[in-house]
């Protein structure tokens, strides 16, 4: 059986190019230019899937993005992609597709028993049935539903392909390259405007592809566009969303039509398009009619069958019945008759029309005033039952393997609606069309109800020209539309043929007209509620063929006009977009940029184990070969600092130069303590509050000159502090003459800490007397270090004698090496963030775990830092009763009573079984071995010396801890001043 439904000639397929593919393991052949659906039909495959809920057999229903049924798993292995629409999948050699959503074979699906159960599993079934017992939901019901429902299966493996984002700008974006879109792009392009023409299909032309005699017009239009240097043509590109300010999103399927993407080629490209003007030429989707059995394989939209015949040279059936409510649909009968399909009957509820007369003259049997009342067959259509319109009874049966349906056309108003435009009811077309534009957009052609190729092209040309003029370009020569007759698309109002059996309004989601009425009876009468209650107009097709039919059924139940009921709100995406495209390149290691200090390579060579600190990579610790485990490394490093000397990369701290005549005034206002009194060449610890009075950040700030300060921030708050300072400078005190420069990246910094720090630093720096008298605690001076300009700060976070040496980042490795060399006689060790944390917890310094956005200066034992005179950010709100309440938890030190018993950050601190606080930070002490920590505890100071419980219910632990002063280590600060 080789393409026995393929016509010998005609259409846009290249019969000389044979493409092999498989469907459910069976081998077939198609041609270049086919979609998978066209190739399946060419080979006589009628049954392509099973429905979502009832597992009913389904066939190809459409020839485009509106397809409800023909969803397949495409490709296999890591590239397996579920729910791809066979009607838009471009055939390639070696394509492998699998039908989905059935147990057993496609032809005999065990889950079809759901169809028998249908009276009990209508809309809202889940909500009603799976309510009780509540405990069953997670363990029984949900897994069961998940197994039974859903559609295809994802590969579950990493995607081997890559995706990229891209930005585009244009004067005029034209969405859709049918007659209207081609004309619009040509008219706009002729003015010299920058034009992007995006078309979701792989061929430009839309309905022109079904009109062989208009091929010269199509070809000429494309050639003209290709010759315009400022026109960009984007085939295989779906514009899926229209956002504010002329921003539209689109996905270009760069390599979906290939077995796999070529090297250096993404699978898909996610475009963000910024357009001055937009022309929407998105066409229309043909509308189904709800009648019993309207989902049987062999029932197909009339226009789709016409497309298969004319564009793909494929006969969708041997004997067809057309069920139509308007004249334009009759062209499908003529197209199929030309293709050799026997037209058994034309069923039309109308009494008479021009098309009916033409059909009769052509020899077709036309049953005026009749409707289709049912379909006959199993996995394939065998016959059509008809009756007199409005009678409700069955009158006749016609044998057929193809039933063509057209209940009118739904303009594709999705993007216009997303742009903010209201929708207006067109009484003649029985459809919603875009009302007045809100953004700079205009619709042209069938998407605003202008049907017929000639009329649509004229409409498109006018829209394209108007858009270019609105974008500031001078009018150019007219685009001549093709001279074609305009078929009459005004339908007779027939949404549903009532009768026994399921009449679907949403074929994909198995929603029947009865389900819509049920929703109304149960109070879900708003279209949005009915949608969610029934799943109407959801899924990959979003109700493109039947959405309005469901609304009309609801309108009838509500006894209101459809115009009043409306459609559910259109939201992105107009068509499914893969997660891969949305994520783009920002996956894996590119999820966020990795920020490295100038000493990164040095740490790597030293065996650093990395820790993420925001975007930064910082050494957590350095794993020496002799270390038994991570704790051994951390304790070794911390011990080196306490006993000898260590060196730590502190380049990640935020650094801001604040300069200007008003610099000191500015800092007095942003800091809770005073900086105007600071001497040049000295540093001071500073505390910043947020506007709400809670602590924002801390750090040391140095006065480099009377009008120049060097502010440091914590690593985590470097960005936020810079924003905070810039915001207040710009908004609160623009009168202050001060400038801010972030120099975080300019300077690398290393802290040399420990009793031997002075010896090491002295050996590295030149031009500075490091003696206690000349360079006391908190002194700062510029000097040379290892032959490069440097700045030395005598500041300490560890509680030891310490110096921070800052150098321009390009010299960091040189100076680090000099420090390490000078430190060899003193047993220097590099230490990482874990040891840094250990040392500061032991010393009782607060960090991010304590300055967590919930604590006040008083809570942290820093209340005395708040200046008494002068205003500063946070001062007023820090005085709120809730923040000054003496009962608030206060910072305390904690020590596990049994030194070997671990305590954990996050544990509750229980006093008499009641939580009175929590642990913020824990570590192991090196000066007094055992587990220690910091925490926030109510009546903290009063409880110093008492034993309480650190409870961690998650770990099932209750550990006795002793409350101690947070400043247990060298409380007099003798070591830092040594």
């Amino acid at each position, binding site marked *: 059986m080789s393409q026995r439904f393929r016509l010998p000639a005609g259409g846009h397929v290249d019969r000389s190019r044979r493409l092999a593919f498989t469907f459910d393991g069976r081998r077939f052949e198609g041609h270049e230019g086919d979609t998978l659906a066209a190739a399946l039909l060419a080979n006589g495959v009628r049954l392509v899937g099973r429905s979502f809920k009832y597992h009913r057999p389904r066939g190809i229903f459409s020839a485009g993005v509106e397809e409800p049924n023909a969803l397949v798993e495409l490709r296999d292995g890591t590239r397996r992609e579920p729910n791809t629409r066979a009607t838009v999948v471009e055939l390639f050699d070696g394509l492998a597709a699998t039908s989905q959503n059935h147990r057993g074979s496609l032809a005999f699906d065990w889950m079809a028993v759901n169809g028998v159960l249908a009276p009990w599993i209508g809309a809202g079934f889940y909500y009603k049935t799976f309510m009780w017992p509540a405990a069953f939901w997670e363990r029984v019901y949900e897994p069961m539903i998940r197994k039974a429902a859903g559609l295809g299966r994802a590969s579950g493996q990493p995607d081997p392909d890559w995706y990229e984002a891209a930005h585009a700008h244009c004067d005029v974006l034209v969405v859709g390259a049918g007659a209207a879109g081609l004309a619009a792009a040509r008219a706009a392009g002729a003015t010299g405007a920058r034009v992007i023409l995006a078309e979701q299909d792989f061929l430009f032309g839309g309905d022109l592809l079904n009109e062989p005699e208009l091929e010269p017009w199509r070809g000429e239009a494309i050639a003209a566009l290709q010759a315009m240097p400022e026109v960009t043509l984007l085939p295989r590109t779906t514009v899926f969303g229209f956002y504010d300010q002329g921003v539209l999103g689109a996905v270009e399927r760069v390599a979906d039509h290939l077995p796999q993407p070529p090297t*250096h080629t993404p699978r898909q490209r996610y475009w963000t398009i*910024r357009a001055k003007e937009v022309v929407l030429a998105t066409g229309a989707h043909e509308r189904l009619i709800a009648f019993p059995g309207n989902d049987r394989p062999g029932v197909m939209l009339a226009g789709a069958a016409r497309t298969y015949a004319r564009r793909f040279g494929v006969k969708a059936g041997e004997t067809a019945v057309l069920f139509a409510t308007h004249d334009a649909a009759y062209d499908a009968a003529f197209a199929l008759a030309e293709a050799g399909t026997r037209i058994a009957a034309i069923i039309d509820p109308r009494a008479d029309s021009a098309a009916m007369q033409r059909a009769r003259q052509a020899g077709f049997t036309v049953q005026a005033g009749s409707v289709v009342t049912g379909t006959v067959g199993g996995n394939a259509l065998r016959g059509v039952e008809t009756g007199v319109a409005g009678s409700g009874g069955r009158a006749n049966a016609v044998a057929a393997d193809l039933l063509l349906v057209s209940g009118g056309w739904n303009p594709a108003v999705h993007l216009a609606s997303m742009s903010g435009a209201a929708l207006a009811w067109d009484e003649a077309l029985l459809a919603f069309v875009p009302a007045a534009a809100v953004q700079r957009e205009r619709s042209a052609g069938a998407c605003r109800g202008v049907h017929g190729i000639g009329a649509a092209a004229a409409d498109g040309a006018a829209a394209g020209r108007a858009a270019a003029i609105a974008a500031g370009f001078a009018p150019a020569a007219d685009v001549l539309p093709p001279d074609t007759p305009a078929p009459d698309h005004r339908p007779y109002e027939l949404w549903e043929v009532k009768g026994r059996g399921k009449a679907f309004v949403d074929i994909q989601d198995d929603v029947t007209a009865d389900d819509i009425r049920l929703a109304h009876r149960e109070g879900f009468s708003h279209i949005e509620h009915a949608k969610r209650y029934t799943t109407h107009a959801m899924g990959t097709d979003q109700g493109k063929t039947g959405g309005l039919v469901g609304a009309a059924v609801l309108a009838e139940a509500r006894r209101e006009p459809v115009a009043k009921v409306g459609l559910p709100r259109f939201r992105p995406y107009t068509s499914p977009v893969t997660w891969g495209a949305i994520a783009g*390149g920002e996956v894996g290691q*590119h999820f966020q940029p990795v920020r490295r*200090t100038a000493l990164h390579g040095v740490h790597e060579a030293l065996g650093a184990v990395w820790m993420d600190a925001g975007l930064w990579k910082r050494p957590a610790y350095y794993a020496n070969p002799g270390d038994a485990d991570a704790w051994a490394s951390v304790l070794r490093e911390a011990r080196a600092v306490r006993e000898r000397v260590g060196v730590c990369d502190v380049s990640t701290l935020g650094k801001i130069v604040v300069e200007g005549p008003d610099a000191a005034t500015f800092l007095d206002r942003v800091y809770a303590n005073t900086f105007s009194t600071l001497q040049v060449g000295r540093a001071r610890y500073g505390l910043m509050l947020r506007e709400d009075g809670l602590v924002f950040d801390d750090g040391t700030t140095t006065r480099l000159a009377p009008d120049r300060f060097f502010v440091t921030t914590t690593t985590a708050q470097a960005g936020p502090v810079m924003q905070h300072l810039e915001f207040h400078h710009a908004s609160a005190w623009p009168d202050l003459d001060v400038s801010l420069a972030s*120099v975080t990246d300019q300077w690398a910094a290393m802290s040399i800490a420990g009793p031997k720090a002075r010896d090491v630093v002295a050996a590295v720096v030149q031009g500075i007397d490091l003696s206690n008298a000349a360079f006391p605690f908190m002194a700062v001076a510029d000097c040379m270090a290892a032959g490069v300009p440097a700045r030395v700060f005598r500041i300490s976070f560890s509680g030891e004698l310490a110096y921070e040496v800052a150098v*321009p980042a390009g010299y960091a490795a040189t100076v680090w090496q000099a420090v390490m060399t000078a430190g060899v006689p003193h047993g220097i060790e590099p230490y990482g963030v874990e040891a840094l944390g250990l040392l500061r917890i032991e010393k009782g310094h607060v960090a991010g775990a304590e300055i967590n956005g919930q604590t006040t200066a008083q809570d942290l034992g820093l209340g005395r830092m708040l200046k008494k005179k002068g205003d500063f950010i946070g001062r007023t709100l820090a005085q709120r009763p809730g923040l000054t309440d003496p009962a608030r938890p206060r910072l305390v030190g904690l020590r596990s009573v049994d030194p070997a018993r671990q305590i954990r950050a996050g544990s509750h601190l229980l006093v008499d079984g009641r939580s009175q606080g929590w642990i913020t930070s824990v570590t192991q002490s090196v000066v007094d071995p055992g587990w220690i920590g910091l925490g926030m505890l109510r009546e903290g100071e009063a409880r110093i010396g008492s034993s309480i419980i650190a409870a961690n219910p998650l770990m099932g632990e209750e550990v006795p801890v002793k409350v101690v002063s947070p400043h247990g280590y060298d409380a007099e600060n003798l070591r830092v001043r040594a």
Partner: protein
Amino acid sequence: MSAPEPVHPLAAVARGRHGAAGAAPLRVALPAREIVQVMLRRGQDAAFAAAMRAALGMDPPGPGQAVSGSAVTAIWTQPGHWLLTAARRNEGALAARAAEAFAGMAAVADQSHGRTTIVLSGSAAREALSRGCRLDLHPRAFGQGRAAHTPIAQIGCLVHQTDDAPTFELTVFSTLAEPFLHWLLEAGAAYGVEIA
């Protein structure tokens, strides 16, 4: 003792061809630059402009503009802020020169180590940049002597077009230069990228 040469933040990146082996690759250069941030003092606009004319032979460029003198380029970055850039000579030389010339008129911060400039050139440069840069770089919208700040691949970047090849100078925080360059190599992979 002469000062050692600083290590370029992208010293570890492999030179040569990355990506496709096309005949017209994008070209990337990683010049050693001195970069100085200049911030105008209140009310010193005229004096500063005169000082810049005297010291560098050019007027401070206006919003979105950059201007090049014989050795120094000035790029407007925000109201009252400019970056001065020049080929690297001695450590701190440009900063010292600027501090002297603009004393009392502008604050000067040396950013020679803190900012890294990646020079991208080639006929496909605009297309490659469009993979992450949302600025409109079309000749009608941008061009030689234009500059703007924008996030690219989540990294703040100063984009400065220096000629119509086109050549773009992309200046980023030095500690983010490596992920930025890796993004650029991927964005340009289809055309090939030659790092000099």
